[in-house]
């Protein structure tokens, strides 16, 4: 199968194992986001694929060509045809934009400049940029040039290490759009490494969650968000409200009422995970569950309310997202209703 494939990859620094049997398949022409907090091993995984670190176990192949196999094969980084966009771009400060982009091209193509211009156009930078120095570019432009440089030699795959870190919100969105367009236009197989869940969910065809050196879940963004494999993943990929409950087949009883269960029917004590946007608040308190507002954060497009259940034997703190902020104030009593099925995990 073409694309990028990591099979049982193990890597360690001295005594410390950083990657434990990582299996990852990135289908040809798609982008997979690797999501992990700092220290999860995501940079090491990237460096193993690049060839800067040799794995202690397992293998890496690109377009069916094995580039690393522990103890047997180690193709040098420059012979792997894998493009790399380092954090903050890592543009060569002594070269112009055009020289940077042409760096990986054979001498003849470098001189002809056609490919350089193609690559720059691809990332949405017009010709005017070619003779500028990296120091004269904004942070976002630097990342785009770095991507153009990586794409110019037509690599079999491209790896991007936190490509949007350190950019402000507006620049980030613009740069991300340009980068995703360029990757889509070239049909490149791409891996994007990030610690930002929103970035991972919004960029990847698939998102792979790396935790303590293990890939705990690889799935499409919606699947990952709605059916995380455990509570840690649930909390890592988004806000989660967790309450105790008792499962009865395909329903679960908890302080929020009797709710439908997503996925396999189960029985016994469980932990119930609800996403804040599933929790609907109503001004009238004749709903079954009553709550008091204890926190209130306005984000413009939405408002996040922090709620505490009024009665019921256990105290639970809920988060709810509402689109209209109908004059809710601290201490107000509201009715709470959960929409849609919820996830349950064995308690």
């Amino acid at each position, binding site marked *: 199968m073409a694309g990028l494939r990591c099979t049982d990859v193990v890597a360690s620094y001295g005594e410390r194992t950083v990657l434990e049997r990582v299996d990852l398949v990135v289908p040809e022409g798609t982008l997979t986001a690797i999501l992990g907090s700092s220290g999860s091993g995501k940079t090491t995984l990237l460096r193993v694929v690049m060839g*800067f670190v040799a794995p202690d176990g397992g293998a890496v192949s690109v377009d069916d060509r094995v580039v690393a196999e522990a103890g047997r094969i180690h193709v040098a980084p*420059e012979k792997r045809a894998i493009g790399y966009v*380092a954090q*903050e771009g*890592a543009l060569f400060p002594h070269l112009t934009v055009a020289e940077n982009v042409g760096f*990986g091209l054979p001498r003849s193509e470098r001189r002809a400049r056609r490919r350089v211009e193609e690559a720059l156009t691809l990332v949405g930078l017009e010709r005017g940029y070619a003779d500028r120095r990296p*120091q004269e570019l*904004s942070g976002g432009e630097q990342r785009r040039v770095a991507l153009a440089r990586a794409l110019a030699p037509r690599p079999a795959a491209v790896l991007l290490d936190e490509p949007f870190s350190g950019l402000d919100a507006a620049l980030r969105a613009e740069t991300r759009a340009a980068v995703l367009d360029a990757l889509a236009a070239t049909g490149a197989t791409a891996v994007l490494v990030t610690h930002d869940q929103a970035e991972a969910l919004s960029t990847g065809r698939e998102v792979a969650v790396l935790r303590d050196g293990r890939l705990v879940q690889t799935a499409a963004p919606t699947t990952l968000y709605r059916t995380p494999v455990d509570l840690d993943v649930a909390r890592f990929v988004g806000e989660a409200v967790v309450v105790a409950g008792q499962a009865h087949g395909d329903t679960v009883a908890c302080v929020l009422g009797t709710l439908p269960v997503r996925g396999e029917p189960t029985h016994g004590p469980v932990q119930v995970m609800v996403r804040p946007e599933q929790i609907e608040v109503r001004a009238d308190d004749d709903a079954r569950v009553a709550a008091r507002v204890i926190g209130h954060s306005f984000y413009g497009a939405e408002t996040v309310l922090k709620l505490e259940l009024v009665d019921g034997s256990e105290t639970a703190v809920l988060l709810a997202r509402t689109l209209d902020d109908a004059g809710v104030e601290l201490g107000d009593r509201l009715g709470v209703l959960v929409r849609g099925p919820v996830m349950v995990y064995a308690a």
Partner: protein
Amino acid sequence: MKERFGVSRGLFAACLLSALLVAVPVVVTVVQAVQGGFSAVHSTLGSTSTLTLVLHSIEVAAAATPICGIVGVAAAWFVERTRLPGRPFWAVILVAPLTIPPFVTSYAWANFGPAFQGFVGAAGIVAFTYYPIVFLLVMVALRGLDPALEETGRSLGLNGRQTFVRVVLPQVRPALYGGMLLVVLDALIEFDAFVGLKFQTFSFDVYAQYQLGFSASGAAALSFASIALCLVLLFGEVHLRGYANYTRVSQGARRTAERYRLGRAAFPTLLALAAVGAISVGIPLGMLVRWFSESSSAGLSSASGNLKYLLPATLTSVEVGAAAAIAGLLLALPIAVAAVRTRGRVVTVLERVTYLSFALPDLVAAIALAYAASHWLHFLYGTFGLLVFAEAILFVPFAVVSLRAALGQLEPSLEESARSLGSGPFASFWRVTMPLARPGLAAALVLVFAFTLGDLSTTQVLLPVNLYTLGTEFNANSSTVAFAAAAPFAAVLIVLALAAAYVLMTRFGRVRTAAAR
């Protein structure tokens, strides 16, 4: 990746080779001493005259090193962090003493009279010849400091002086200690700087042993003391390798530091710097003028008689210097690259091995190499190549230091990006690292060149019989009645030294950092 101790196998092999080559004189010396028998070692080391001379060396080091520390740090701070008028000029003047041959300085001081021919002269020459080592290292460290740290210090209620003591000084301390360590080692084995004086040190004893019918084992036995001392200092001093890590520029854009206004302090500061310049550069220059004025009367005939040797001597000196600079760079490069890439113990040890050339008085190292060549590699004996090799390994620590400072400032992701774009390790180094580290390379070349030019004892031992250099001609003529005859050679040496200082100051530490906004 095929690795050995944190670096690729090829690089590790190159490091090992460099370290082995640099260690040759020390190993040969130890072998010689052992062959001479332990009783010889014991009797030579045990004699009271030897003990006195060793104490002299230690006294000189003890007196000169603190002066180097204070002058070096102060000069670096004023040049790097204040709006001192004429900073580029002062930078060159302050570094020039390092490139002026110590034997020229020595004769210049001796000419001032008997008071300067004893301990005062010896300590003074060492202090005012070697403070630029501290000056350079501290200056690079200051340049690498994040100004936000100082600002944070001020915001926490520290005044300017407290900020310097509690924020700036701790961060330049590794550079300061590293520099002072080099000064101590230099002072202990110094010989050239004392040739004009009546003051005798440890190296003089070695020289005497050498003169007394080539007593190699005696000289070797004496060197045991300095080798032991050097090893203790090098491997006991944890901070030595620390400073380059401090100079590493943090990721992202970093502002350049705001320079302090000197205000009313400007005049006293200029006066102090002028005094330092007068002592270190003014004395040799002043003497040169006096020698030339004498040549117009007494020594005119002998001076003009010597002029025909001036051009060949200059050419030979420049050839030896240039060849040694290139050889030293080649020896230092793998070590510096490896030391920047890994903090592994094995590479650290190899890096420190390059400092072993400080373990031996230059003379002993030269004798050891001559001995090794005459016994095992006869085709090298008495050749230009052996002299070049000797000079290169003597001064390789300075090349390692400047290369490390330059390479340490480069982001590793630059070379990795080059690798990902299809350039092999060598191509990446050539296309990315070299151009960015060029100022450091230039500094390394200039330092080794200048030191080789200013070396006398090694040259005298290893120079092929039919050749002469500026140094040997100066020395031969300075022992005659009139210094006038030596003046032209000293003049060329000083001009070359000042040129080297100028190149050094326009290059050193000026490394373009990662593409900042």
